[in-house]
Every structure is written in C-alpha cells, then in structure tokens.
C-alpha cells in the first residue's frame, strides 16, 4: 500500500515541525567502578527478582553445575553446541550421568524438529550470558547459531552461566561501550529474573509463560 505510505508522509511533512537538537540533559543511571560493589548489586538485584544465584569459579564450575542438576532433579536438559564454557557444561553432564539418568537435547537441529521436545520433554535449558548488568540485576543474552533463542525461553527452568568479569554498571553504558548500533544481532534479550505476572489482582506469580525458575551461576574469573 504505497499510496498509504505516501499519504501518511504527506501529512507528516506538511506539519513541518521545527527539528529539535540533541538534548543537553545527561543520563546517569547507577554506576560504580568498584568490582565488589558491582557484584553485590548484580546478585542483590537478581535475588530480589526471584532468581537463584550460585557463585563458583571456573575450576569448580562443572561440580557446581552437576550438584545443581542433581539437587533440582533435572532429568532432561537442553544445551547448545558452543560457547566459551561449553566444555564445562558437557563435563558436568557426564559427571551427573555417572550416577543419575540424564537425557540431553543438543540443540543442533532446526527448531521445527525439536520444538515438541523442547516444549514437552525438557526440564531445563543451559545458556551462556554475554554480559551482566549490575544496576538492575540483569543478564544479557545474545543468542546465536550455537545457542538458539528458545533454549532460554521454552524449558521451565533456565540455567544461565555468567562470568563475573563481564558485569558492567548499567544498560546505557553497555550499549555505548560495545557500540551495539554497529552490530545488532537477530535478537538480544535482557533477562531479570524468572517469568512472572501480576495480572490477577496485583498478586505476583512466577512462571507465567517463560521459565518459572532462573538459576544464575556466577563464575569468579577476576
């Protein structure tokens, strides 16, 4: 409907608004240079949003993950095919499998082929996080070929791995320092807790449509 387009633009151009220049008001959300302060705020924010945060280090990661999977009685887990910590994830799984039966869905096929399984037969999905935002206790997910979008969305639990060194102060600073405008991927998702809703009588309930559990494993790497 190009005629609609032209009619809309004709009306907009006709108004000929006086163009306003960039505002001089600076936006300074919460910020800190202290790594301990960043970490504390990050954990506090996520915890307040009902996420569980476990702290570990790279060396102990597979043990932490293993214990988590066993304690939560996750028996069916979806994982990606790559990422910096992929080998630790694989190792943790093999550790679990020594003592516990564990079905693994490796997300290496088209979504159509694993959709039903993801929806119906998976307890948890494991993904990396690109960055953490301390201000609001937020994970930044940057899904790609190796960790598709639905891995963190469809399973009822999401286990998110994040390295402490990636935590930044706030969202605004993050997109500026990483110059996001030059490299937007198909999808970026900011996650700040498990899925929730207050749509019924303002009563907070978790697990609306996304994962009802969010477990964040914070890896000390500094």
């Amino acid at each position, binding site marked *: 409907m190009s005629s609609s387009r032209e009619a809309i633009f004709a009306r907009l151009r006709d108004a000929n608004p006086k163009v306003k220049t960039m505002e001089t008001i600076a936006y300074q959300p919460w910020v800190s240079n202290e790594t301990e302060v960043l970490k504390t705020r990050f954990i506090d924010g996520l915890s307040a949003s009902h996420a569980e945060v476990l702290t570990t280090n790279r060396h102990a990661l597979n043990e932490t993950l293993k214990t988590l999977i066993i304690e939560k009685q996750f028996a069916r887990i979806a994982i990606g095919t790559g990422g910096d910590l992929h080998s630790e994830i694989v190792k943790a799984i093999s550790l679990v499998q020594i003592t516990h039966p564990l079905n693994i869905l490796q997300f290496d096929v088209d979504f159509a082929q694993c959709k039903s399984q993801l929806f119906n037969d998976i307890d948890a999905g494991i993904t990396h996080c690109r960055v953490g935002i301390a201000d609001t206790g937020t994970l930044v997910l940057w899904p790609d070929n190796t960790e598709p979008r639905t891995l963190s969305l469809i399973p009822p639990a999401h286990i998110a791995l994040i390295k402490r060194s990636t935590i930044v102060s706030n969202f605004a600073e993050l997109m500026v320092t990483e110059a996001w405008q030059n490299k937007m991927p198909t999808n970026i998702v900011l996650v700040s807790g498990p*899925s929730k809703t207050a749509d019924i009588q303002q009563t907070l309930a978790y697990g609306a449509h996304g994962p009802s559990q969010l477990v964040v494993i914070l890896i000390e790497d500094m």
Partner: protein
Amino acid sequence: MSQSDSNSLNNGVHIQPLAPEHFHQQAKAALADPQLRQNFRGAMDYLKDKRKLAFSDVAEEKHIRNLSEAIRQRCLSKLPDLLEQLESNCINNGIQVHWAEDAIQANQIIADIAQRHNAKEIIKGKSMVSEEIELNHEMAKLGINCLESDMGEYIVQLDGDKPSHIIMPAIHKNKQEVSDTFAAHLDNFTPTIDVDELIQTGRSRLRQKFQDADIGLSGVNFAVAETGTLCLVENEGNGRMCTTVPDVHIAITGIEKVVEFLTDVPPLYSALTRSATGQAITTYFNMITSPRREGELDGPQEVHLVLLDNGRTQAFQDEEMRKTLQCIRCGACMNHCPVYTRIGGHAYGTVYPGPIGKIISPHMMGLEKTKDLVTASSLCGACGEVCPVKIPIPEMLQRLRNEAKNPATAAHPEIKGQASAASKTEMLAMKSFAYAATHPAIYHLGSWSATKVRGLIPSKLGAWTQCRSAPKPASKTLHQLLKASHKKDQS
C-alpha cells in the same frame, strides 16, 4: 466500536455496546458497582505506591522525566525522517514494512499475510494497537482465530470482554471473578482463588497454543530508527514466545513509537517500567532486529512491521497537540486519575481509557464521538504530574474542549469532529459572561443582585444539588464591604 459480544459492564448491567458516546450511562453504571469500584481503587492504590517507591529519589525522578520528555520531543520533531530511516533499516535487516492509514488497511495487511501463509491461528502478545484496529474481531470474520496470550488479555478474551487498563487488562476483576471466568470457559478447571494455581492454569492451557500457532503477533514499545530494531517490554515471556516460536512474526505499532538512537532506549525504558508498575526493570526486554538469519536454528522466517496512522498524523499536524504522541503507554495517568479510579476503564468506551485516552481518542475517533470524554476531568492535574514524558494532559484537554466548542481558525487546521459540541445557548452564556466580566459595572450589578436574591435561590439546582446544598451568596459582596469600610480604592 466493536459490535462484538462485549456489551456489558462488569456489573452485568447490559446497556448498549461500550462506546464513548454512551459515556455518561457507562460511568453511572460503573459508579453503581461497589465491587468494581473496590477492585479499581485497590489496584490503583497498589500501582501508585509501587511507582512512588520506584521514584523515591525525587531529584532523579525530575531528571529522568525531563530527559524522557526531551528525547520524545526530539524524535517527534524528526518523525518523518526517522520513519524513513526505520523503514530502510528494517528492510535491510529483512523485516517487511507495511503502512496503514486506518484500521481497515491494517487489518487488510495482516489478513493478506495470514492468507498467504494459509494461517488459521494467530497467537498474540499484548498489543493495544491490535485492540485499536479490533484485530481479533476482524480476523474472526475471515476464519482466522486470534488468541491472546498475555495473562490479563487471556482472561479478558475468555469472557468476550475488553481490557480495562492498558498495562493490566484484567484489573477490573478480582481473583474470585477470574476463577469464575475460568470455570465458565475452561474444561476440567477446579475453581480456586489461589493466584499461583490460576496462573498455572493459564500457562498450561496456552503452552500448546504457542506450538500450534501459525503467526505470532506483538506490539512494539520502541522502534529504533538507526538500527531497525523493535523493542518489546514484558514480564511474562509470552511476548518472547509470540515473536520467536511461530514461523511468522507480525509486529504492529503506531507511527509515533520510533526513537532515533539505540541510546534513547535505556532512559525511556527505565521511565516506562518505573511509571507503569514501579519496576526498576521488567523481566524481559526483547530486541528484535531481523528474522532468522542464515545458520540460525530458530526464530521466525518472516518478520513484518505494520505502522499505523489512525489519526496520529492529525495530532502531529498541530504543534501543541503533537505532545500527545510523546506517550510511551505506561498507564501512570490512569493509575493516578481520580475519575479513572472510580469508573474504571470500560466506562470510557474507548480502547485507551483514562487521561491519555481522553486526549488520543479524539484524533482516532473524532470529537463528535468523544466530546463527553474531554469534559470528564476536573483538570486536577494528577495525570500530568506523573507522566514520564511530561505530556501536559490538562492543557490538551483544555485545547480539545475549545476545538469541540468552536469552529477551526486560520491558525489551526480543522480536526475530526471540530465544533461538534458547539451550543448556541452555551455560547451566548459565555459571551454574556465575557461581556459582564469585561464591564465591571454590569458584572458587579450581577453580583450585587445575586446577594439580594439570595433567599430566592432554589434549593434544587439540578446536578449541583444532587449531593450538595445550594450555595448561598453572602449578604454583601466584598466590593460593597470595601466601599463601606473606605478601604483605599485605586480604580
């Protein structure tokens, strides 16, 4: 408005289909429903408290509102250019862009996409613009089923009802009423007022629907011109589901939602969530820049963006009323409005209720239909005080009242329904008032007369005295008293 089955207020009083033309009756019916009033008062108190906590630092609140206003004004001042930039960046990213002047065109665009894919099921994330075009109703005529997946919208849809709040659609119902709704419409549902159980019911019923839907439809909170990115704000995850699981994603939004830079997003997002629900951030912030790219294993194969005018260009053409388009749809104006708090969202008979509804609906539907809405405000200013982008809502109401009463002038183009509330008797009364007020001798004769006939003023003055005693003038006016006391008079 819709001819759909939604033709009653929540109190069960059946009147005509909800429409702004019937505002007086609808408001009266709502006021007479104590449960409804209690539900709204409770909800509004909750949301007001949450917002207050989120802006506990008053200086910061002021700062972020000033900035948000400035960003929205800048983006609107460049709107045509930004829309072109958005369009070209979206196309480069593989997003198909469509333009609709009105609801009919928007529905046609969506119907065409659906029919091309032979789609029968559309799963929807929350979108007020889709309400604006009555998408569900129009698609149903074509045999296409639209299913709401936002919990509040789902509850409302089950009842053939409409959202009564733009952020919390089912706010007019309490948990017992939600249980009743589920019991009436869902098989194998055991009534409960446990909110977790109610939500789990919604979740489990909708889970299969996400898998089966041919198309996912969503709104847009911010469309970023410089990158061609669509941003969605939500807590439930249904928005992510709708935009990720089905093969086709259609996003629909008003043309005013565009922002210039990615860096415009964080402050507006923060202002939005804090104002709407008092959250520092929502659970999910979803940034979509393209359909599934080469090598990616999930996400929609097609993404469409439908940009709707539907009266927005009318508001845009007037410098003062353009501010209406600054709105980021947080709903804070409703939460703080003493009128909305008492009558709820349905009484307005418009898609957007409350203060923002009163100033945007006239552009969408015309003043002839909405003239009673623009007067339904005491101009108390509570809305303008909390608006995160500082829309001077009371001033917009004043302006629309003037447009409803008077013909267009050379300075301002005619708007839909211009002068539709014009009244010769009222105009005569106002002219007489102005004449008297600019001719003190006559004016004071009037005041003097009022004091003389004070005993004769009827105790029934219609609307005023339905809950108040008639006002009684003093025995002498101040003017008379001052003359008598020889106070200095410089007239």
